[in-house]
């Protein structure tokens, strides 16, 4: 009885592992910044939080990160912070280029995801579901730890 149950399970695990290995885009070390509940939030000041992740393109063709979504925020945008001689400027970008073979780090003070219009506080230790959208690879869902 036991071997019969175990067999289909083993098959499922193998298939998932093989699928992950074939996928050209690999999402590593996802995390989002903590965000406390904001009292008397002024209009036009949606609470937001940044998300960070390392992306690897193991495929032979270029791809690009174009957006994402999460159930804890109204929308997810791709932003870039640039340092203009000490002045930190942040802007929305259409895409983070992922050339074939590239490893691109979204990190504080650089490219990052912006979770706009948070629906609840994000407390360290929790994790949230985060879906990333790529130009070619489509959507990849991961869980991001709140730090």
């Amino acid at each position: 009885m036991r071997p019969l149950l175990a067999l289909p399970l083993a098959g499922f695990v193998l298939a998932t592992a093989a699928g992950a290995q074939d996928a050209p885009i690999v999402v590593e070390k996802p995390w989002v910044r903590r965000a406390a509940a904001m009292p008397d939030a002024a209009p036009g000041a949606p609470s937001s939080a940044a998300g960070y992740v390392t992306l690897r393109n193991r495929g032979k063709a270029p791809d690009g990160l174009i957006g994402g979504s999460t159930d804890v925020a109204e929308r997810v945008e791709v932003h870039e912070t640039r340092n203009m001689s000490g002045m930190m400027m942040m802007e929305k970008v259409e895409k983070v280029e992922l050339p074939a073979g590239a490893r691109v780090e979204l990190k504080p003070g650089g490219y990052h995801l912006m979770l706009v219009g948070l629906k609840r506080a994000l407390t360290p230790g929790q994790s949230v579901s985060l879906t990333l959208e790529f130009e070619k690879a489509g959507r990849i869902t991961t869980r991001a730890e709140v730090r």
Partner: protein
Amino acid sequence: MRQRRRAVAATLLAAFAIAGAGPAHDWADAAPAALRSGAFDPPRAAPDFTLPAASGAEFQLRRHLGKVVVLTFGYSSCPDVCPTVLAELAQVRVRLGAKAAQRVQVVYVSVDPERDTPARLHAFTEQFDKTFMGLTGPREQLEPVWKAYGVSVVRKDLPGSTPPTYLVHHSASVFLIDAAGRLRVMAPFGTPSDDVLHDVRLLLKE
């Protein structure tokens, strides 16, 4: 062999000659007292200011003589840069240890007076460290402080956002003010937190 020994002796002599040329105490002082982040040389008096604190009390810089004040600027709707700076400063206090950290006051001045109510700024800073002091107030009160520390503040609308919202581009340097009220360090954004920790420790030892 003899030739080589002579060469070593000559090198040593030359080294002594150089050391002897300058005032000896400079050499002794310079080695341990080197600040690693951007140091003000010579140090100058930190511009004093008084602002309402998010806790309701009034903050006056001058009243914090005896402590190392870590001064930085930002706003509560800032998702990337500001939380990064505050998270790093919280880590610096943890790594200092409880006793030394008591002599370090982190002060966070708002660059977004229109949205940063005291309660909002307090909620923002206390999630990193409950001892952080958020300062906010009317623009007329904040602007002179930005200016005194050379902090540029530019409001930038975020296109396509509903309701309309904006970001605030600002200088995100961290200033270290020593126990005597002198401005000693301006660490630009991205300065390794190891260096900031090192400099805070150094100022605490003075």
